């Protein structure tokens, strides 16, 4: 059976974030390279129809950091999911290069796993790590994101492939889910079908909510930042890990809804959510131990390495003067 492949997060850093970091570095952080909290957000996967070829182009599985990333009490924009992470800014390029990335990464992954096992808290399932070095004189910013995701051994498999959610659930059900979701927006949620009527709840209520509900009427769902038909987005990995860790007896097969209709479809579009039946073999790992995690973002060449944003063309006064009319 084909292995489920998840579409990794891609970071999208708004230039305003670098401007904010510049100010923060000069006025607040100065020489401190302590870890500070940071926020980001993602939305449901979007695709656009190319009018010239008729193909749908899936826009990336993006997670975006903007000017408000350092604001306490960060509010994700409407129709978006807020994510918290940690940010470490290094003072020199050498420090940045020599940073113990594995330790930083494991620290975040441990924290995530602990919140799952100890507190059954799903709110840290989307945590991320950002390390950076800001070359303020040259307006260059080196950065590397990591989105830790727990590796499941054996891997999840999907036998009958992903299909449109509309084929599995009726359009009316999706509409009902959409209405309830708008009232209770959550990156991860549960759906049960009772008397042909869908009801949704939060993921931490798994036990109560699915008690006395036949497995064929249980669905786990998440806001899916991917728009690719065959690849669910990155957040599903940690959701599955969470469910396996806490409810291993009932989760060897899962009905998964990739919710991509955070904005309900208009007349001209159709439901974009996907549905799949996922299966997993017997666990090999020891119960309760933290599975290994992956998730460093690849650079432009597709290698594990940092990225760079060069804002000189948009920030350097002399260059701006050159192109000004």
């Amino acid at each position, binding site marked *: 059976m084909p292995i489920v492949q998840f579409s990794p997060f891609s970071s999208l850093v708004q230039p305003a974030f670098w401007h904010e970091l510049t100010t923060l570095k000069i006025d607040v952080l100065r020489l401190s390279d302590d870890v500070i909290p940071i926020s980001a957000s993602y939305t449901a996967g979007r695709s656009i129809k190319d009018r010239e070829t008729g193909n749908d182009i899936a826009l990336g599985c993006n997670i975006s950091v903007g000017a408000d990333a350092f604001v306490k009490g960060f509010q994700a924009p409407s129709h978006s999911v807020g994510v918290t992470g940690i940010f470490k800014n290094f003072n020199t390029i050498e420090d940045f290069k020599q940073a113990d990335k594995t330790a930083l990464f494991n620290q975040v992954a441990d924290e995530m796993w602990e919140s799952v096992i100890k507190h059954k808290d799903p709110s840290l399932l989307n945590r991320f790590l950002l390390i950076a070095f800001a070359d303020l004189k040259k307006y260059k910013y080196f950065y590397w994101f990591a989105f830790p995701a727990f590796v499941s051994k054996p*891997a999840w498999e999907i036998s009958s492939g992903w299909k449109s959610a509309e084929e599995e659930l009726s359009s009316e059900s999706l509409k009902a889910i959409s209405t309830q979701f708008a009232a209770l927006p959550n990156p991860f949620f549960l759906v049960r079908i009772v008397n042909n009527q869908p009801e949704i709840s939060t993921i931490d209520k798994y036990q109560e909510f699915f008690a006395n509900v036949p497995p064929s009427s249980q669905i786990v769902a998440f806001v899916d930042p991917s728009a690719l038909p065959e690849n669910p987005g990155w957040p599903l990995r940690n959701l599955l890990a969470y469910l396996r860790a806490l409810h291993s007896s009932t989760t060897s097969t899962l009905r998964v809804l990739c919710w991509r209709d955070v904005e309900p479809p208009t007349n001209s579009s159709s439901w974009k959510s996907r549905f799949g039946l996922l299966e997993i073999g017997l666990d090999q790992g020891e119960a309760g131990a933290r599975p290994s995690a992956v998730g460093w973002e690849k650079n432009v060449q597709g290698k594990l390495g940092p990225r760079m944003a060069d804002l000189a063309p*948009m920030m350097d006064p002399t260059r701006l*003067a050159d192109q000004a009319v």
Partner: protein
Amino acid sequence: MHALQQQYWAVREYLSPVLRESKFKEHGRITPEEFVAAGDFLTYKFPVWSWEKGDTSKARDYLPSDKQYLVTRGVPCLRRATSLVYTDADEEAERLLSFGGSGGPNDGEDEWVETHAGRAAGGDGAANPGEIHDIPDDEDGGLSGGMQSLSVGSGLGGKKAGGAEEIPPDLDEIPDMEEEDLEDGDEATAAPRSTPVATPGSRVIDSSEVEVAKGNLLQVRTYDVMITYDKYYQTPRIWLLGYDENRTPLTPSQIFQDVSADHAFKTVTIEPFPHSASLQAASVHPCKHANVMKKVIERMNSSVVADQLAKSGAPSGGKEGGKDKDKEGKKKGWFGRKSTGSSGTATPTGKDTPQQEEEEVEGMRVDFYLVVFLKFIASIVPTIEVDSTTAM
């Protein structure tokens, strides 16, 4: 010199009085209140748009503090405008866009020319996408020289548009720290496919893939689009921040590839964004906005008025007539509604007489201003899908 000019503009905007009187139909300009009203309508009708506070130290006091400017993020831009070089043959491809919505026979006046409708990219434009020599050089030639000296923003190499015109990034500056051993290969990570695989039946292509089929080069950029209110010109003003397919910020020269040749370097320039302390963004200079908007509004308005008169002239007595009107109002779209009455949404039913109706005719409502404005902006940046309103 440029800095001086920007200072001058800032002072000029500061000194110019806030427009109080609504005359958007006479000269195409709007008051801050009307900007907020039109913005509210835009965000209500198209939730991709939202209001932003911006930098509070840069807040304009004539706008509500939480409604300083409008923003929509991640607007896709599939192709470069330079691949849409406009030729005579394309005139046949011009399409009349109907604002009326219903597409009925008397909608003729609501139309607006959209160029390049359904045009398949081909010929030179598609073969050399991204090259910027179609853009007329400034007389002194120094400008284009200046543009070429800008280095590529992405820095990390990769496939860039218009290879010849752009200087490869300075590779020495990129820290050599690829760490392939940082984590093991993971079978459950979807790898970006190097060749486009159109999955049977779905035809969804990942934006990071470059589709070379049919000589049709696809490089999906995205833009953050902002609309501010320009107090001096008393019109909205549009701002663009772009990202390439690797989500690296675009340089000015790359942004100009998405601006139609008639406007690049002339009306589109890089300016400090007014609601941020340091951010620079590409902007369409608003000096001609009022004139263009006036013309468009005049055309649309006369048809809306005629339509409203025709409706009010029709025998409409009793409740039946009122219901009919409601229906027609809905079908007609949103800008034909009358704003008289308590809330401006309810058409008084039953007791109207034709005379009253005639007095109430006010034509296009100012709420619709920004929707029209976006259609106008779409003609300047033809490949950036700012005009989400056509999806309606």
